Structures are given as structure tokens and as C-alpha cells.
């Protein structure tokens, strides 16, 4: 009984179904012709094709990074399919025209596109594999001048905005995975909130990887103009697959003067089975730029899925008095590996950043926090506070912390606190003695550990996140 803290996650992946839809797919492999084919399928303007090709050519000169504390079999980039769109025949006039099988898939995921979402007050731009299939609430948002659509549509309808901001935070040459994404990105979401407008609802997208062996390369671009406010929710689930699937997304956020962007993610992609077979490889570049004074960008993430997570949502604090926040819960179980954290780059004066990271490791999972706090020479009186806590469940898992702090201005204040704890048998027994089952006890203790992050999530997400944690850790305590 003394080794009773091992084994809590044995529920079948709830979202492991495959939707059988005719997909418009181009053959596996990657070359300039692939990039051209993707661009042609999307009827893109020449400037975008050029941009993609520059990214592709740069990518061919780059090497996959291996500094992350993760181990995996080499990825066969020529074996991937880089474009797969559900065949819809003609453009959709309304949600009712969406393929019933697609709708069914969304229903299984609990993402009703119509009434329920309207009741819940959430506008949804659903990305199924690579192309957006339906968007709600567009008209209401349009009245306020808010643009919320797929990136592909934005390229057609709002080319000036896209051209101005695409790659302005994450350049096509940024890193291996970002360059790959820039070359082959399929679709994603686009949000623009005009000056002085506060977006009245949470904007939400559910991503879902469906066709087998299709890497999904979304690209999301969110711009809050001067004095604007927007809160964006991203939720991710993927069907069960035996082979590893590559996912390399890019998210760019831009906050102009006095603007605020809040970006929340609950990531529940397939993590592989108990032996570590299958699962998503998630190599994501997320970055925001506080371009104007008094702007604010806040990232909140709950990462429970994927076999490999490599992700550092960051903030460039360029405007004076701008604020960056990163709140993160990362859970690994079985053979999952996560190397995640943030970068806070203080360039402007009086810039402030807060980092709260909670890592939970169970099974043989391996969890690393990697964070960089940089204070530039002009960032007078910059402040950072970092809190980095790890919790271990069982004795075969790992927790690591890699903080990098560089300060080039002696008026800056940087604080870093870190802790590592093991979930206590005594805590579990205490809750059990009050009538609470062992699994619920573990969920409760872990949720308590993550409270500082959960409270940053929008209400409807916070509950879902807590349930996901419970599911992820099921069976990790035997």
C-alpha cells in the first residue's frame, strides 16, 4: 500500500472518433510545389504566396531544434500531408449547410454550433482540419466593427490588415516550426477589434485534427487597436490515432496603445496511450506584442494533452507601462512530455510581467518549465514576478525548471519563486476519511494547486479545465 501513489489515468480518450468525410487532400511531402499548391487551393494573392515561399526557402536552411527537454523519434517531414480540407462543394451560406457528419462530430465534442452557443453567448469559429466551416455571431460583431473570421477569409476581405500584421510578431524566419507553419499554414482565426471597442463576448475557436497523418498548421492573428479589448478562447481536442501527428501552429497577438488581449487555451489533444504510442506532437509558437503604451497581453493555458508539448506563449513589452501575463497549468501522465513556459521581453519603461506556472507530473510523464525574463537597457523600472510550482504524483515522473533571467537595466526588479512538492498520501487519506473517493481527492488537491491559474480563466472554461485535469489524472493514484 505504501506505493499507493501510482496509476491514475485509465479512461479511454473520450474524443477518439474519426469522422468519415471526403477530404480534399494534396499528396504527402513538402516542396515549393506543395506550397504553391496550398496557396492555389486557397486562391491567395501573389504577395502571400511570395511570403510562404520565402518562409519555405528559409525553412530548408534550418534545423529542427533539440534544446527542449523532450525525446521523440525523428519526424518525417516528407511523410506528412500538408493540406486537407473537408469537401463542401460550394461556399456555405449558413450553418445549416454544414455537412451533417461534421456537425455530428462537433456535437460529440460538445460544441453545438447554433442555439447552445448563442445561449451561452459564445461566438464560434470552428476549424475542422484546415478550413473554417462555420462562424456564428458575425453580424452582431460586425455592427461593432469587429472582424472575426477565418484567416483565409481575412486574406480575401481585409488584405491590408493581414498584410500589415501577419508575421509582425512571429516573422517567417523566427524558428524552425514557425517557418514551417508560415510556408504551409492552412487556416486559422483572424480577429480585429477597432479603436475603443470592447468586444462584448468571449470569442472562441475549437480546433480539431481529423484526417490521418495530416499535420495541422493553423495560424491565428488577433489585433486589438487602440483602447480595444478582446478575450479569446481556444479549445483543442483531436481524435485518437495510432501514429504521432504533427501540429505546428503560430499565434500572433498585437495590442496597440491602451488595448488588452486576453488569450485562453485549454488543450486536450490526444496524448498517446499508456505505453506512449501515438499522440500529438505539439510544436507551437505563440507570441504577443504590446506595441503601444499601457497595453496588456495575458496568456492563460491549461495543457493536459499531446504526447509532446513545446510551447512558450510570450510577450514583447515594447510600449511603456505595458503588462504581460502568463498563467499556465501543464499536466503530463503516462509517457507525455511537456517543455513549456514563456518569454517576457521588457523593452519599454515601467513594463511589468507576471508568470505563474503550475506543472503536474504523473505516471512516467516529464514536465519542464522553461522561461526567459529579459530586461533591456531602456526598460527602466521594469518588474517581473515569477512563481513556478511543480507537483509530483508517484515516483517515476519528472519535473524540471529552466529559468533564464537577463537584466540590462539596474532599476529593474525581478523575482523568482519556485517549489516542488509531492502529492501527499496523508492529504488523500484525509479527504477519503471525509467520504471523498481517492480519485476525487486527487482532483481536488490538484485543482487547489492550480487555483491561481484557474481563476484567470473565463468561467465556462474554468469548469471544463478542472474536469479535464480530473480525467487526465484518473488512475495515476492506485
Amino acid at each position: 500500500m505504501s506505493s499507493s501513489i501510482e496509476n491514475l489515468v485509465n479512461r479511454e480518450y473520450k474524443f477518439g472518433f474519426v469522422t468519415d468525410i471526403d477530404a480534399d487532400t494534396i499528396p504527402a511531402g513538402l516542396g515549393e510545389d506543395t506550397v504553391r499548391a496550398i496557396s492555389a487551393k486557397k486562391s491567395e494573392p501573389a504577395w502571400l504566396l511570395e511570403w510562404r515561399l520565402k518562409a519555405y526557402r528559409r525553412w530548408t536552411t534550418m534545423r529542427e531544434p533539440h534544446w527542449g527537454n523532450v525525446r521523440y523519434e525523428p519526424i518525417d517531414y516528407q511523410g506528412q500531408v500538408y493540406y486537407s480540407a473537408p469537401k463542401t462543394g460550394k461556399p456555405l451560406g449558413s450553418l445549416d449547410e454544414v455537412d451533417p457528419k461534421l456537425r455530428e462530430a462537433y456535437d460529440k465534442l460538445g460544441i453545438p454550433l447554433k442555439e447552445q452557443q448563442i445561449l451561452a453567448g459564445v461566438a464560434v469559429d470552428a476549424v475542422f482540419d484546415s478550413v473554417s466551416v462555420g462562424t456564428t455571431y458575425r453580424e452582431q460583431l460586425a455592427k461593432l466593427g469587429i472582424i472575426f473570421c477565418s484567416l483565409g477569409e481575412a486574406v480575401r476581405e481585409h488584405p491590408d490588415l493581414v498584410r500589415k500584421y501577419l508575421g509582425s510578431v512571429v516573422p517567417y524566419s523566427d524558428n524552425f516550426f514557425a517557418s514551417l507553419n508560415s510556408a504551409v499554414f492552412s487556416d486559422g482565426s483572424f480577429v480585429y477589434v477597432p479603436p475603443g471597442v470592447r468586444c462584448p463576448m468571449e470569442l472562441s475557436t475549437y480546433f480539431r485534427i481529423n484526417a490521418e497523418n495530416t499535420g495541422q498548421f493553423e495560424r491565428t492573428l488577433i489585433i486589438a487597436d487602440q483602447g480595444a479589448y478582446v478575450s479569446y478562447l481556444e479549445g483543442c481536442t483531436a481524435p485518437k490515432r495510432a501514429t504521432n501527428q504533427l501540429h505546428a501552429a503560430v499565434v500572433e497577438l498585437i495590442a496597440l496603445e491602451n488595448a488588452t488581449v486576453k488569450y485562453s487555451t485549454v488543450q486536450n489533444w490526444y496524448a498517446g496511450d499508456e505505453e506512449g504510442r501515438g499522440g500529438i506532437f505539439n510544436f507551437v509558437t505563440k507570441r504577443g506584442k504590446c506595441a503601444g503604451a499601457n497595453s496588456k497581453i495575458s496568456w492563460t493555458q491549461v495543457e493536459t494533452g499531446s504526447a509532446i508539448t513545446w510551447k512558450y506563449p510570450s510577450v514583447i513589452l515594447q510600449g511603456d507601462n505595458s503588462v504581460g501575463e502568463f498563467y499556465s497549468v501543464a499536466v503530463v501522465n503516462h509517457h507525455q512530455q511537456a517543455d513549456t513556459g514563456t518569454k517576457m521581453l521588457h523593452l519599454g519603461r515601467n513594463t511589468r510581467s507576471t508568470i505563474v506556472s503550475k506543472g503536474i507530473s504523473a505516471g512516467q510523464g516529464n514536465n519542464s518549465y522553461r522561461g526567459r525574463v529579459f530586461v533591456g537597457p531602456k526598460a527602466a523600472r521594469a518588474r517581473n514576478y515569477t512563481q513556478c510550482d511543480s507537483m509530483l504524483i508517484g515516483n517515476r515522473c519528472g519535473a524540471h525548471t529552466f529559468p533564464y533571467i537577463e537584466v540590462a537595466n539596474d532599476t529593474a526588479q525581478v523575482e523568482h519563486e519556485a517549489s516542488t512538492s509531492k502529492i501527499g498520501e496523508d492529504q488523500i487519506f484525509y479527504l477519503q476519511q471525509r467520504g471523498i473517493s481517492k480519485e476525487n481527492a486527487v482532483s481536488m488537491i490538484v485543482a487547489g494547486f492550480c487555483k491561481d491559474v484557474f481563476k484567470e480563466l473565463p468561467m465556462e472554461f474554468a469548469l471544463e479545465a478542472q474536469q479535464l485535469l480530473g480525467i487526465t489524472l484518473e488512475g495515476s493514484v492506485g
Partner: protein
Amino acid sequence: MLDIRNLQARVGGGADILKGITLTVNAGEVHAVMGPNGSGKSTLAQVLAGNPAYEVTGGTATFDDRDLFGMQPEERAQAGLFMAFQYPVEIPGVSNAYFLRSAYNEIRKTRGEEEVDPLEFLDIMEKNLALVDMEPSMMNRSVNSGFSGGEKKRNEILQMAVLRPRLAILDETDSGLDIDALRIVAEGVNKLRRPDNATIVVTHYQRLLNHIVPDFVHVLSAGRIVKSGGKELALELEEKGYDWLETPAEAVA
């Protein structure tokens, strides 16, 4: 209600700490289990509550005619067995109110009763907080986190008051309490005495028994009950100490 026969138990694969305990507790009774350090009295409490660190190596126990050792710790709790911990455990980030409502609802569910929502639970809490002289603000704090020793013990009695167990086991609840806190805790326990429930008070010292008057006193030594009697036995122990009992215990062995 509780029937223990020839119970033997150990911790961490070592030698038996309990070497054959036989004890019957009926509804309406208060039993005190006393004994020197290392006599096994806390082990008895932990084993009855089902702490997985302890292992039963022999004997039986039934609780309301159910095989106690065949039940998970939470099943014992749901059946009405409550232990007030000697060292209440801290659960950071989980509010006292949420924790206690979850426990309350788990127990209600096993009885086939409706769960209560946070508002209904607030009413239940208010009635019970006064019993242990606790501020309502304590309910919003994390379970036992940053509580003083006295606050932790009062929190245990509060939980007992809310959960209304059939059988309450107080494991050295008096340890580390000043006289005022001791009085508050004891008064709480006394108010919860009913003809249909029972209490086992595990204690080293007699002073708690001035406040919670037992019907029976059992003295444990080296894992066995070496003497049982009425409440006057506790006074005798206070006067003479435990030494006079040690020898007969060894003689029996």
C-alpha cells in the same frame, strides 16, 4: 455498533503494534482509550479509519454489522465513521467550504439523499460554526492552511458537527491545545452526543476527560488493553501514571 476482535496491526512492514485488541462500542457510549506514548492508541484510531499506511495482520472488526476492513476509507466515512485527526492535513487552494460541502454531499449521496447547493450549505454551516466558536470567514480559507493548532482542532470538530457521524474517533484531539481551546472542543463534542451515536476518545492525558466524561476507560500498553473500567480509572491513571500498569502487561505477554 463497533465490534473489534483480537485486532493485530502494524505499520510499514514492521512488527505488530497492536497485538490483539478486543473492544465493543455500543450506541450512546463514550469510550476513552488511554495509554503511554507508543502503546498503540493512535494506531488503533488509524487502523479503524483505514489509513493505508497501516496493515491489519489479524483479527476482525465489524461496524454496524459490516466488515470494516473490507471497506475503503471513504466507504467507512460514508457509513458514518469519522476520525478527528491528531495532525489535520493542509490542502492548499481548496476552500474549507468547498471541501466540507463535497464531503457532506458524498455522504448524503450514499444515503440516497439530494445533494445540497452552496447556498443551502451556507445555512448548515452557520448553525455549526457557532458550536466551535469559528468565524464564517474561516470557511473561505484553504483547508487547514495557515491555521493555528487550535483552529485546526476546532475545524475537525466543525467537520464532525456537519457530517454527524455514527461513530467519532478523536485521535489525541487535546494535544497541543490550550485550556480555552480544549474547553471549546470538548463542549462541541458534548453537544453532539446523542443516544444513537458513539465516541472513542484517544488521549494521553486525563484532562480532556474532565470535559468529555467517558462511560468506559481502556488502558493500552504495548498493543494490548491491560485494564478497563469506568471514568474513575482515568483519575487513577492521572494520579499514579502509567508505570504501575506496564509490568502486568509484560507479564501477560
